[in-house]
């Protein structure tokens, strides 16, 4: 089975610029998550989708971050404008369903550096 695909792998941008990340979950996985992992910390959930609906975006900085999953498959996460503190690895994960009694499958992540 193919894993969770993310692109790009790396991105360097200047502060105040915009950036977008893409995620393609495992086929058939209804639930998709975006996590932010700052260096030296554990992953922090930004947003959770169930199909194309948002389940939890309580920790998403909505003044600059946005995410969508229009057709309930692929998802994009956007930052506009970026700040230095947004430098992190952005992880996408998917699971068959939100109530699945097992963990999630993670992508390789996108490493963002804001200079």
């Amino acid at each position, binding site marked *: 089975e193919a*894993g969770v695909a993310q692109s790009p792998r790396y991105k360097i941008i200047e502060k105040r610029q915009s950036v977008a990340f893409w995620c393609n979950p495992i086929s058939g996985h209804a*639930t998709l*998550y975006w*996590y932010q992992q700052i260096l*030296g*910390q*554990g*992953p*922090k*959930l930004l947003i*959770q989708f169930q199909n194309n609906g948002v*389940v*939890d975006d309580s920790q998403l900085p909505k003044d600059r971050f946005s995410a969508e999953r229009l057709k309930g498959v692929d998802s994009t996460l956007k930052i506009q404008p970026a700040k230095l503190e947004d430098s992190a690895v952005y*992880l996408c*994960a998917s699971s068959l369903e*939100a*109530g*699945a*009694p*097992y*963990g*999630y499958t*993670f*992508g*390789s*992540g996108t490493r963002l550096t804001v200079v």
Partner: protein
Amino acid sequence: AQRVTQPEKLLSVFKGAPVELKCNYSYSGSPELFWYVQYSRQRLQLLLRHISRESIKGFTADLNKGETSFHLKKPFAQEEDSAMYYCALKGAQAAGNKLTFGGGTRVLVKP
């Protein structure tokens, strides 16, 4: 609120020595606990989950609800166990089943 604490940032042990990674959690309901591992240049992957009561790669973890802990143990560490380990908690459906991670523990197994 869900919270996971891993008090050790770094654990350094010699090959063949026991290793124990501590994990404490805070959650008012009945949680599901997991250990994830990230080897160098690899993606985050599930190591084990408490409901399976399984041993993976020689690692075991027991959920202690009284002490709200889920420590990860291995009696004889190997060099290939060197990695980042994250403890994670999944709450109930009412909480969106979201996975909350601890800060991680880096394990270094020396030859």
